[in-house]
């Protein structure tokens, strides 16, 4: 698309709710996440918009797609560990994505971001992706995330 004649900011938050809502519904999920990190008002706007109509999953599989959004068996989009780690700074957290031995995804990191994303999209996760050598902590992740969990489906990769 042609470059607009100037780059004056778009005061999107001054729009009435309907156009604002309509614009936001066109945002890519990662843009939604980034938008929510800008301010409390932005976060509330995303929360007030019914956006995510997919199943949400927590994954400890090697692909590092920590939070996955699926429809049936199809992955629609994901927030990888890297994506989330880069955004730690907006929530003023230095939570490390890996446990002390460096190989395993930190349950605390997963919990922090799952809680944030569940709250943001007003959804609960119902899929847990594990691989064959998942740790006890990972297998019991649902216990610490039970407030943001609905009927859980366990998906194992071998």
């Amino acid at each position: 698309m042609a470059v607009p004649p100037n780059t004056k900011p778009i005061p999107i938050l001054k729009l009435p709710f309907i156009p604002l809502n309509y614009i936001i519904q066109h945002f890519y999920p990662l843009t939604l996440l980034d938008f929510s990190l800008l301010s409390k008002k932005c976060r509330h706007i995303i929360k007030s918009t019914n956006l995510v109509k997919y199943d949400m999953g927590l994954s400890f599989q090697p692909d590092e797609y920590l939070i996955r959004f699926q429809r049936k068996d199809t992955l629609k989009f994901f927030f990888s560990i890297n994506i989330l780690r880069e955004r730690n700074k907006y929530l003023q957290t230095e939570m490390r994505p890996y446990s002390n031995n460096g190989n395993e995804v930190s349950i605390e990191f997963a919990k922090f971001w799952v809680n944030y994303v569940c709250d943001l999209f007003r959804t609960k996760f119902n899929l847990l992706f594990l691989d064959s050598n998942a740790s006890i902590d990972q297998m019991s992740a649902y216990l610490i995330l039970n407030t943001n969990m609905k009927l859980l489906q366990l998906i194992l990769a071998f």
Partner: protein
Amino acid sequence: MSCEEPTTSPTPENNITVVSSDGKEFLLDLKLTEQSETLARLISNFEYDRTDVKKDPVPLGNITSAQMQKIIEWLQHHRYYPKWEQNDIHYSTSFTFETWVEEYLNIPNNEMFELLNAANYLNIPRLFSTICRIMASRITGKSAEQIRTVLNIKTDVKNDVYTGIPIQEDSSSSEDGMSEISLSPSPPPI
């Protein structure tokens, strides 16, 4: 999408006059007003589509003459397009627009913002949807900091709800630029 334009000559009976907020009058073909749900409903309520009814000018207090001209350009271009049907809205990573639309909306952000408000007020779904998609396309693929700049959003979070740790307010962005945009233009002098 393109539609062939039949050659018809508008007659005085099938026009209405609308008056912009700055007092300028525009003669609008009734066929064009069908694209605006607000105007179409008004015309139907006042029976302005009948030839024996006196048509008073319609004041549009929220729309300036510049915006009205732009809207008429849109209405004329889409005059013979089929009625707009809203599909399910889906997020997108890429947006495509007709060349004409790209040129039409290659305008400064503040003008586009005002045009969106006008499209919302007049309820012109095709224009409204197109501008919303264009605005979304200007954000998609940008980082949080770039979005902050493009949308001029400053942090309002003092203590993060998740961590409880104070967050520094972003002093680099300011909402001063917004004051230049008039959401409700002043009414025409009486």
